[in-house]
């Protein structure tokens, strides 16, 4: 696990032309990409589809990556962000996602974690609220609260100005809280 930066740099370079190295690189980062996607899409099948898209894009574009090894995860997350946003931008697909949420949540509450209804309830609220935001707001929320990134790291990941990200994040948080409050009130009322 504690591979050195030099080893990782070599691995990225080798992965451009060596399938075994690419497989190794893929296995190192599969979980990161899937975890990001599932937190954006709230649906296993969609997350797996998008994860596949991401790694195919990585495979085709890896030779164009010439950043530092520390930039690699950011590069991956940026590809994942674009792929997730593309997935969500299709409005029909978006509607399906929201519908699936309702169905899957029921399934989850019965089969996955039956012992913690409160958390599942919160998850439903979060899914609905988050997915109703614009993709750019979903992106910064996920990077900030699930990837635990700092403002400057989000900016580097998205290739945006930190001040732009700051205002986007601030708007996203305000909107999300408002939606969560509204949803909770409705449920309570």
């Amino acid at each position: 696990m504690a591979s050195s930066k030099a080893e990782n740099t070599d691995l990225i370079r080798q992965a451009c032309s060596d399938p075994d190295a690419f497989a190794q690189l893929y296995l190192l980062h599969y979980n990161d990409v899937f975890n990001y996607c599932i937190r954006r899409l709230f649906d296993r099948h969609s997350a797996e589809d998008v994860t596949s898209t991401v790694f195919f894009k990585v495979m085709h574009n890896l030779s164009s990556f010439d950043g530092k090894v520390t930039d690699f995860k950011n590069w991956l997350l940026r590809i994942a962000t674009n792929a997730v946003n593309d997935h969500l931008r299709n409005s029909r697909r978006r509607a399906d996602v929201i519908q699936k949420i309702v169905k899957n949540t029921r399934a989850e509450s019965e089969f996955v974690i039956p012992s913690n209804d409160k958390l599942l309830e919160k998850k439903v609220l979060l899914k609905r609220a988050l997915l109703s935001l614009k993709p750019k707001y979903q992106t910064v929320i996920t990077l900030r609260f699930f990837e635990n990134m700092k403002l400057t790291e989000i900016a580097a990941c998205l290739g945006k100005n930190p001040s732009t990200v700051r205002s986007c994040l601030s708007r996203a948080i305000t909107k999300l809280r408002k939606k969560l409050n509204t949803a909770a009130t409705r449920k309570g009322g």
Partner: protein
Amino acid sequence: MNDNEKYIEEFVNDIPFDAPDDEHRDELKKQLLNAFPKHRLQPTIHTVNVWRKIMKNSITRIAAAAVIIVAIGLLLNFWSDSVAYALDQTIEANHSVRYIHIKEITAGHEDEPKEFWLESYEDGQVKNVRMHMPSWDAPEDGAKVIVWKENTAQVWMKKKNVLVTVMDKAVADQMLKLVKAYDPRLAVERLYKQEAEGKVKIEIEEPSDKSRPIVVTATGPSRRDVLFVDQATKLVTAIKFYQLKDGEYQYQSLLELNGYNQPIDAKVFTLDEVPTDAIRIDQTTQEVGLEQGNLTDEEVAAEVVRKFFEALIAGNYAGAGQLLEGAPADFIQKQFGQIKFIRIISVGPVGPHPNPQTRGLVVPCTVEIETDGKIIQWKLERIGVREVYNQPGRWTIFGGI
């Protein structure tokens, strides 16, 4: 962390998500390996040869990178309370600077300092700026001279012989931030405020020789600023910056503050040195690039490239120029007129730009062209496309093809 942020953090805490599935991971691995590009196993000799051929035919890289990234390498942490709030020009500027010339000498680049000349209105708002940005700051662009006035910046890139005019507010904000933090008359006063708040510790060395400056050393948790104050005028004339690394304060840069409130010749704020044969790209008088509309970023990037080559095929050089940072038609014709573009073979797949600082995407493209009486395929693997600087929602090719 504000209240809303805390609320969200607590809300999302412990929410369960599905874990990655080994079966999907292994299946995807198989698919990827089956699809692994076979040509990658051998060097891409064909592409290289085509590229060399094209280069011989004088299709040179076009240079029109217009983004102004003025990295003022100063560390403003000490002064965060004073300068971190919005620095919009509409806010009254709380500094005493009407004119100043600032030179920033960075460790390791002593021969090529950054320089800034600034003129403010009486109310402190920025009126005129001139900046000299050295080549080491952006090697691809080379050294840049930027002249800013009334929200318009002219960027002169000597190496590329290009003058780009863009709408810009960032330069004024950056200059305001700079003078608010290092106002020669108020800098020490601000420092004392920081000391009262327990953020820094100040030591003062006042030599009895009045020709030597007073040295004010402010040390914080991770950095140290050393201010040199003229004993006669009580103005800060220079600041040395140190950063704590490996247990010791290491020198980073020197800021020289010259000509405090001595009027600067108006000529300094003009770009008379630009030669008449320079390529002039004015993005303030035309709509540059392509409107995004409902397209995704990747779709619009591909569309820009497609339309660029369609314009070249049709001999529409003005149209092609509009999609290449707004370059003038005669320049595009000079660059591409001798090549016959026949058809577009493929565009995409679109990927992220290898340099995230460009905030762009890369669109590979293959076109069929006729050159030296032969029809060949021209593979362009790194056409960069991004949003037009300060024209959100419009996309352009940047940095040449």
